[in-house]
């Protein structure tokens, strides 16, 4: 294809679109109330949807899987455990973080040690501070946050005139805690409201461990004596609902699922309906992984949420972030927050060498707290996030 053609094409569209941006702004300011109803009136016909969206929509209108586009998703990781016929009673959530602390500490001690060695050096000169900053950067904390932490620490060390390793360590701990926001509410709202179950949606990009987190979360809740209904709204990836089914059957949680290619919103709706009918305490909806750059898929996610809201309010939207994710994690969080109003983050795969520093940035920029951490492959390796334990584990 001719580049001239392509470029000019995009220019023309852009020219009108940039104007269109203005068009909408005015309209919004003139008639702010009308916004919600607009899409129905002016809503673009289907062919206007971006291509990648269309593929999925095709599936959504009920093409048999064989005709569905040969596309599939990356696989979330999952724990290894033989499927057992009888129901398991997973341990309750309390004390999990502590139990897993050792594991966390083991994999991350080098980071904390390195920092402390640096901090206890005889002279804290320019190079040392830079090295401290670098150490923080290697934890994916990001340049801005790292610089800020170091700046603060530097000032405080100067003001207090401390040279003592213990004190510096305490300062560093405090600084890290401050970045993580130790006073934010980190409870996952799983309490049913009267006759209505709590609804939790699990979202995220491909391969971060959404299905696994859904399964683990169900186990935690069942362990705490709740009844859980799972909704397999990942109708896109091959065998995703089977994967969730395996999780559900282990703890005896019913899984609402449909054929591959079904409309995820309808699955989610049915799951909530089933939860209400059964008088379950919590409904957890697992959605398909989607890259935040794909507008069509993000719209679909928005739709899932809107449709669920027709039945019941959504109490939690948990964004699953992979601890190995770098600076892209921030962009992911931002887009997901825009589309579905993320209320919490589940940080997974923290048992590797990664430090998950990206959560510091996410929390700082978006104020979304980390609520859960996935610390391993075991089915019970999901714990509520406790910043103090986390920071202590990091510092070794």
């Amino acid at each position: 294809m001719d580049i001239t053609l392509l470029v000019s094409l995009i220019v023309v569209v852009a020219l009108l679109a940039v104007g269109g941006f203005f068009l909408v702004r005015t309209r919004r300011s003139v008639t702010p109330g009308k916004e919600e109803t607009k899409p129905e009136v002016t809503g673009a016909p289907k062919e206007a949807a971006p291509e990648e969206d269309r593929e999925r929509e095709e599936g959504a209108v009920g093409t048999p899987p064989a005709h569905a586009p040969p596309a599939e998703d990356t696989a979330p990781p999952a724990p290894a455990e033989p499927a057992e016929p009888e129901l398991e009673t997973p341990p309750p959530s309390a004390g999990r973080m502590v139990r897993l602390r050792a594991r966390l500490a083991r994999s991350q001690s080098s980071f904390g040690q390195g920092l402390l060695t640096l901090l206890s050096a005889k002279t804290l000169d320019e190079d040392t501070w830079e090295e401290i900053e670098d150490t923080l950067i290697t934890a994916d904390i990001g340049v801005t946050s790292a610089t800020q932490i170091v700046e603060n620490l530097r000032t405080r060390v100067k003001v207090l005139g401390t040279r003592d390793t213990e004190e510096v360590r305490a300062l560093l701990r405090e600084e890290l805690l401050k970045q993580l926001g130790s006073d934010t509410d980190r409870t996952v709202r799983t309490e049913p409201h009267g006759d209505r179950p709590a609804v939790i949606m699990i979202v995220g990009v491909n391969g971060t461990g959404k299905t696994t987190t859904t399964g683990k979360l169900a186990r935690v809740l069942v362990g705490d004596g709740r009844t859980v209904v799972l909704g397999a709204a990942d109708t896109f990836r091959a065998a995703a609902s089977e994967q969730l089914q395996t999780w559900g059957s282990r703890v005896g949680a019913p899984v609402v699922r449909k054929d591959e290619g079904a409309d995820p919103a309808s699955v989610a709706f049915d799951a909530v309906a089933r939860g209400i009918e059964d008088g379950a305490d919590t409904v957890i909806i697992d959605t398909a992984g989607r890259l935040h750059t794909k507008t069509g898929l993000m719209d679909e996610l928005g739709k899932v949420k809107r449709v669920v809201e027709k039945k019941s309010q959504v109490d939690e939207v948990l964004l699953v972030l992979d601890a190995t994710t770098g600076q892209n994690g921030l962009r992911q969080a931002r887009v997901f927050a825009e589309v579905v109003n993320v209320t919490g983050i589940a940080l997974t795969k923290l048992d590797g060498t990664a430090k998950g520093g990206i959560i510091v940035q996410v929390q700082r920029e978006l104020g979304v707290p980390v609520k859960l951490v996935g610390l391993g492959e075991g089915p019970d390796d999901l714990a509520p996030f406790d910043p103090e334990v986390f920071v202590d584990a990091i510092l070794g």
Partner: protein
Amino acid sequence: MFETLSDRLTSVFSSLRGKGRLSEEDINATAREIRLALLEADVALPVVREFISRIKERARGEEVSKALNPAQQVIKIVNEELVQILGGETRQVRFAKNPPTVIMLAGLQGAGKTTLAGKLAKWLSADRNTPLLVAADLQRPNAVTQLQVVGERAGTPVFAPEPGNGVGDPVEVARESIEHARRNNHNVVIIDTAGRLGVDTEMMQQAADIRDAVDPDEILFVVDAMIGQDAVNTAQAFLDGVGYDAVALTKLDGDARGGAALSIRHLTGRPIMFASTGEKLEDFDLFHPDRMASRILDMGDVLTLIEQAQRTFDEDEVEKMASTMASDDDFTLDDFLQQMSMVRKLGPIGNLLGMMPGMGQMRDQIDGIDDKDLDRIQAVIQSMTPAERANPKMINGSRRLRIANGSGTQVSDVNGLVTRFFEAQKMMRKMKSGGGMPGMPGMPGMGGGNNKKKIKAQAKKAKKGKQRSGNPMKARQQEAEREAERKRRQEEGPQQPPQLPPGLGGGGGGQPTLPPGFGGPNMPDLSNFKLPKK
């Protein structure tokens, strides 16, 4: 928010223009900016350090070229170094002398191994190979089922003797699969292993056992483009644990800058062989180092854009569009509608603009573009009669009201659209007259100095427009025009030396006079095209 490297460097150099040689201070000032840019692209710190020192060394000795301003020059050096590290020799799959060729996939959980296995199988079968997929991921619940589904879609048989979910011995499965492949005349065996962490010695041992059992010809390390600083540790752990011959980078269709590619290549010396860029099985190709370099630096990626267009559009559409563009008839709203729906197939308009070089400074505007606006525009146009679409001049007040009512918008919206459309029409007319023949007076870019003034004047105009907050519409228009002007300049490039591939900025004759924000990103692109050919 996320400035591009070229924007940053431009600001660093704003006070330094016109120097004969890059001074030590210039280099240091840029080094920090490059460091930040690389770190934000998730390039691992040790790699960044080494890289910076190399850049410094090279920049120090460099003559300042008359054709480039300092910022462009530094970017050019950075880009060349990046391509060099990422590129090296292009690797092909090594096929075994005695089939089957065994390819083993290893990587972290969620990196995309199972998906990649299917893509690889499909890619290989296109070359008349007969691959066999082997389900050796017996850990994750239903990974085997997933591979079976993937295999079905790729039209490749799957060897899965064990049900998975923790049952069965992957080493045994892998071993048997070779025999199975021999019996059934498969010339390639692709073994999908379970995801594992670098620190998990037990699992690493299992991977090593699989390796020893099947003696693979290629071990591919599958890694997610979104991975952060941890890439180095993981890459090293896998290298020590199983060893690998090449790397496959997945999820490149996101907006992760993929600095990990650079880190892994630099640290382990293993080439990056494949890039996976989407959810469909076809979204898979050999890795292009030059594009990755631009991506890490967050520069435009026109090549990818074109390729995407080629994949998405079918020939008829393109031809039809080309003829509309070339015909003497005026550009109508129908044409526009059709073009818009085509362009939208490529993805969100903001992303597309982002892929164009030189758009860094427009980032705010680009971010502001919402694809829903396009829906509205479409609604407005579709509320017009065919006659109105063909001849928008006939749209008078009462028609406007009708259209606004029909599309659920305000009359002012319709007004705005029509006005903007006339602008676009004017532009198209200009393009038609100037676009076909290079060097027409209407087109900027041929002569050097003249052109600079023009663009500068335009930039000024746009700035004024920005300040004039009372009339934001005009400002937007001007911005859009400026954008269009840029684009038109770029189009010109290939026309100067007509046989050149889409080398933006083509002959470089126009380069020296470009404002840095614009010329900067172009320049490396130019070198991109040349380098691999050497």
